[in-house]
């Protein structure tokens, strides 16, 4: 965190100064470790085992926060008897289909609680998992039909959880992660010591956790710990996802994601039929997803205004429909295959930043046209003349027919707009200077692009032009460059009522077409016709929660699910940690924050049979976005790879899975094809060719793919060259000289880097084997003042099926002293490595295909492997 979020880290330092224990779990000793109370090293890609060890420690010693767990989580819920756990199936859950490598979650459900129409199943087939926490079926008096408050029933979630993690002992963790058992115990004990009624602990993670084929389940394991310890919905608790680019959170809320509409509404898929059919699946009987119709119809009204009417389904048919996985990597493969002919690249640099960047460069070289909007001539705009493939002869400038349009972008200081941070805080920023020359904002570009297209289409009778022509496209523009008003867009997101005034929140939205709202969760950010996100009242002029600093969604709520900060009777768990509570006299919820509960709903509220949406939830269930109002220790639906986290090895791991026969995540998305070959994982012939683990990461001194840092002299001089971090032991083993050069080789590529031999990287002992890990910052590319090879050339494309994130945090490689070959020699060397691996394998056709099939551990991946 100190490395990549230095400004945010000041608050960690302040907490530390006030006595907080700071624990840093990272394969490397970083600037964060330097300031932490304790650094816990582990083998990259093994956090589920580590966190699972903590879960097991908590459960084995009965350290869970009983009152919280029994009342606020789904621990008591009894699960369908058809459910089989990884303990029963040696690493698989019930419902796995080896043909498609996908799960049918039908057997994961609550006993007698029908979930056929839940999110997971409809998406499993499309390989998309959204609809967070959505779940069909009816509750009885706010509870699933079968529960055991004593948490003793063998099929209740609590017992399943216990069994599931029982083998995650400190010794096992040590074998898998290479982390000394004592460290695990020390961490678990510290978490327990700092949780409960009087204290809370928080988890902070970022892409060290997400960029794995099991990334989503990493976070799930942390969620289980936090729910068991009662650290959700309470001050000082939570799980904080440190985000990436400024307002990357905002671009998830009002998404740039292909499978979501604003506010996490699912994007309709081809088979959805009409509006009714869509709502049928999306609308839930209980919780705030019970108003999906209000949200969606208001969205349609915001987009198509008066044209959207009851009669025409509010233009529901104007929405695009999903036909498959259109996420970033498959789209790039589509370019390679000539299926995708044109591409917009506004603010991304895949030629450096995306896994297997070489393949991205080749893909872009296969387009008809490419529009790059950036502040610098990044590698993704100049590949046609200076891609490394041109030196190796794999690409020839004259033969690249891609027409590249490089358009100068305005930076964030040159335009108005909002940043949404990890805490859902939407903060407005004002333009500081006019954009220079032809630089323009995204808003300007897309607004005027749309305007011109609409002018060109004007008068068209072709029905396929209607959605564009009928769009409400009337944003006011300002100044000589005709900049559209960003505040007008924010107001559209907030929503407008029948009276034409900004609504005060999503509870005002209607499904009858009388209201419009561009993003229901943001509804309220422009309440009273005031840009609430621009508020900047200093903290010393308001309460410590600072509700008048900017605006947080939903409803300016600073802590989500804050009902959990009070006990079932509505009293604070402790004076120290009081946050919101039930005020019997006033007959409503009150406190430091805006209760995310219906303010007048009594703690002992018992929903009647016919109750709908939030009124169908009982007075004691804080997790109001969940269909059953509880925190999910066990996820009956919505995840592609199982209701509980299980440790799987990374796709290319040189290590066996000591916990299950199943070596890697069975549902991971693999793309085994020329240009994206995989190295053999453990247990597959030839794995020895790539014996070392490497991970990639950031440096404070640079930003991502470097477009914003490698060209700036003041930053370039701070980290002027691509380097690799290795331990003294590995340096000795491979003859690497400090300050010299090394060449790192994978099944895809070989890159060179200066060698930084440092004790901050230490070999770990795991399962009787020494783990050497190599650290690679991934900021470098061919342009700018500071140039170097791109670490992403090394990585293959393999994805977490839930969110299609690449596994860029754990790979297998070899390293050798000296610089890499030049020209055609380079691909030849990489090829030789792969041949050697294959020859070590089952003869000439012991192809990488093997590695690709997510088969049950692969040959030797079976039980026999477990030491």
């Amino acid at each position, binding site marked *: 965190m*100190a490395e990549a979020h*230095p400004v945010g*880290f*000041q608050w960690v*330092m302040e907490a530390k100064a006030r006595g907080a*224990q700071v*624990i840093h779990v990272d394969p490397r*000793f970083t*600037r*964060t*470790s*330097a*300031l932490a*109370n*304790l*650094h*816990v*090293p582990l083998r990259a890609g093994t956090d589920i085992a580590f966190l699972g060890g903590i879960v097991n*420690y908590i459960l084995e*010693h009965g*350290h869970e926060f009983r009152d919280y767990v029994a009342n606020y989580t789904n621990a008591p819920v009894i699960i369908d008897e058809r459910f089989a756990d990884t303990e029963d199936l040696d690493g698989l859950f019930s419902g796995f289909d080896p043909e498609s490598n996908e799960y049918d979650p039908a057997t994961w459900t609550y006993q007698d609680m029908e979930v056929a129409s839940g999110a997971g199943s409809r998406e499993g087939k499309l390989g998309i998992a959204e609809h967070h926490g959505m779940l069909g079926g009816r509750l009885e008096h706010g509870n699933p039909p079968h529960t055991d408050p004593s948490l003793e029933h063998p099929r209740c979630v609590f017992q399943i959880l216990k069994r599931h993690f029982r083998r995650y*002992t*400190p*010794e096992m963790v*040590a074998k898998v992660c290479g982390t*000394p*058992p*004592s*460290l695990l*115990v*020390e*961490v678990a*004990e*510290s978490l*327990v*010591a*700092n949780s409960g009624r009087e204290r809370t602990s928080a988890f902070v993670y970022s892409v060290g956790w997400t960029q794995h084929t099991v990334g989503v389940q990493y976070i799930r394991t942390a969620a289980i710990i936090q729910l068991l310890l009662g650290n959700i919905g309470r001050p000082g608790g939570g799980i904080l996802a440190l985000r990436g680019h400024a307002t990357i959170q905002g671009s998830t809320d009002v998404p740039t994601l292909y499978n979501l509409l604003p506010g996490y509404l699912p994007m309709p898929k081809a088979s959805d039929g009409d509006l009714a059919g869509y709502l049928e699946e999306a609308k839930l009987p209980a919780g705030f997803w019970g108003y999906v119709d209000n949200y969606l119809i208001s969205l349609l009204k915001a987009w198509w205004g008066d044209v959207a009417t009851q009669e025409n389904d509010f233009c529901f048919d104007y929405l695009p429909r999903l036909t498959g996985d259109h996420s970033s990597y498959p789209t790039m493969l589509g370019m390679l295959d000539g299926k995708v002919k044109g591409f917009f690249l506004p603010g991304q640099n895949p030629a450096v930043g995306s896994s297997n960047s070489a393949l991205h460069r080749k893909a872009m070289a296969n387009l008809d046209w490419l529009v790059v909007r950036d502040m610098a001539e990044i590698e993704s705009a100049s590949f046609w003349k200076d891609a490394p493939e041109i030196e190796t002869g794999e690409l020839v400038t004259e033969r690249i027919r891609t027409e590249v349009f490089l358009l100068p972008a305005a930076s964030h200081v040159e335009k108005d707009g909002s940043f949404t941070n990890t805490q859902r805080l939407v903060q407005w920023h004002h333009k500081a200077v006019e954009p220079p020359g032809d630089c323009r904002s995204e808003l300007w570009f897309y607004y005027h692009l749309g305007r011109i297209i609409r002018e060109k289409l004007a008068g068209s009778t072709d029905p396929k032009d209607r959605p564009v022509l009928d769009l409400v496209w009337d944003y006011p523009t300002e100044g000589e460059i005709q900049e559209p008003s960003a505040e007008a867009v924010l107001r559209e997101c907030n929503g407008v009522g029948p009276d034409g005034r900004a609504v005060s929140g999503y509870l005002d939205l209607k499904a009858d077409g009388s209201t419009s709202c561009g993003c229901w969760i943001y509804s309220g950010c422009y309440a009273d016709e005031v840009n609430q996100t621009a508020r900047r009242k200093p903290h010393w002029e308001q309460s410590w929660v600072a509700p008048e600093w900017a605006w947080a969604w939903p409803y300016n709520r600073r802590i989500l699910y804050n009902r959990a900060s009070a006990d079932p009777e509505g009293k604070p768990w402790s004076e120290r940690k009081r946050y919101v509570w039930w005020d019997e006299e006033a007959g409503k919820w009150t406190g430091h924050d805006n209760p995310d509960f219906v303010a007048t709903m009594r703690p002992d509220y018992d929903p009647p049979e016919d109750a709908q949406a939030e009124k169908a939830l009982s007075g004691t269930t804080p997790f109001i976005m969940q269909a059953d109002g509880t925190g999910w220790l066990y996820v009956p639906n919505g995840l592609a790879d199982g209701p509980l986290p299980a440790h799987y090895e990374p796709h290319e791991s040189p290590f066996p899975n000591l916990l299950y026969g199943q070596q890697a995540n069975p549902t991971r998305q693999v793309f085994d094809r020329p240009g994206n070959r995989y190295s053999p994982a453990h247990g597959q012939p030839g794995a020895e060719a790539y014996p070392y683990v490497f991970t990639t990461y950031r*440096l*404070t*001194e640079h930003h991502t793919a470097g477009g914003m840092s490698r060209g700036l*002299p*003041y*930053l*370039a*001089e*701070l*980290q*002027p*060259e691509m*380097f690799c971090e290795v331990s003294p032991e590995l340096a000795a083993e491979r003859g690497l000289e400090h*300050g010299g050069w090394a060449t790192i080789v994978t099944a895809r590529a070989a890159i060179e880097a*200066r*060698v*930084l031999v*440092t*004790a*901050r990287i*230490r070999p770990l002992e795991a399962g009787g084997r020494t783990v050497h890990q190599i650290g690679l910052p991934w900021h470098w590319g061919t342009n700018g*003042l*500071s140039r170097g090879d791109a670490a992403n050339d090394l990585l293959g494309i393999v994805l977490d099926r839930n969110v299609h994130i690449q596994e860029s945090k754990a790979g297998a490689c070899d390293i050798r002293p000296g610089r890499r070959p030049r020209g055609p020699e380079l691909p030849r060397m990489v090829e030789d490595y792969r041949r050697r691996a294959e020859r070590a394998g089952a003869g000439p056709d012991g192809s990488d295909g093997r590695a690709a099939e997510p088969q049950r551990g692969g040959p030797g991946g079976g039980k026999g492997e477990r030491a």
Partner: protein
Amino acid sequence: MSTTTRTFGGGYGDAARPRVGFFTDTSVCIGCKACEVACKEWNLVPPDGPLGFTGNSYDNTMALGADTWRHVAFVEQEVPGAGAGALQPAHPDLAAEAAAAAGLDGPPSAKDGMRWLMSSDVCKHCSSAACLEVCPTGALFRTEFGTVVVQGDVCNGCGYCVPACPFGVIDRREDDGRVFKCTLCYDRLSDGMEPACAHACPTDSIQFGDLDQLRAAADQRLATLHADGVSDARLYLRDEADGIGGAGAFFLLLDEPEVYGLPPDPVSTTRDLPRLWRAAGLAAGALVAGLAVAFAGGRR
């Protein structure tokens, strides 16, 4: 003689301002280098080329100089037992039990005995500033804030200040011919703003303010750290009795100064100037005596 520069604000009369400075608490430095960059941005300091990888941990700018007025040092140390016992278990008995069950191996943190010291260095704005005292042109002067600043329009690049500085701070920019160093953001101070580096520092490792208040804060911090068992912590250049009469920019260090590239016991060279002149006087006298002898021997 150096006393002339010890009376701060001397000669400024009513314009004299309380002496300001820096307390750099390296125990909270995260090595983000924001200070280095902010300084260059604000003061339009040229890049510190040529670009190159040093291998000295994460330090690639290497030292203070004409083109680096703030410099962040990185020192990697293997310290067995560093951070040991950092965390207190909730259930010592259970922990012990679990540990036993796990057949445990010594104090965990000892296995990870690593320290990574980071420290942001800067001109010390010495109380007796050798650079200023030896400057033949008066280009280096003491501002109304008690800071030491070069007047670019006066400096003739004689270079005398360069070897005079006991910290190797000030240096000549070759393509320019004049010397440069931290001005303690004289322009910002004059406008009532805090220096750019302190402003950019996310963790308040760089604290700017009135010197006496900073010294109080530093003593406080030192006491806290010692109480927390950080016995290595020490203040550097805080003491007015030291060889430079105390610094305007002083530090809290976690190891000996030389580990960070700082002199352990700096002394302002001009403190010895009277002695040096006396020696010169004697030498000159000897020369005259020698001549007398030479002539006493007659013409041939």
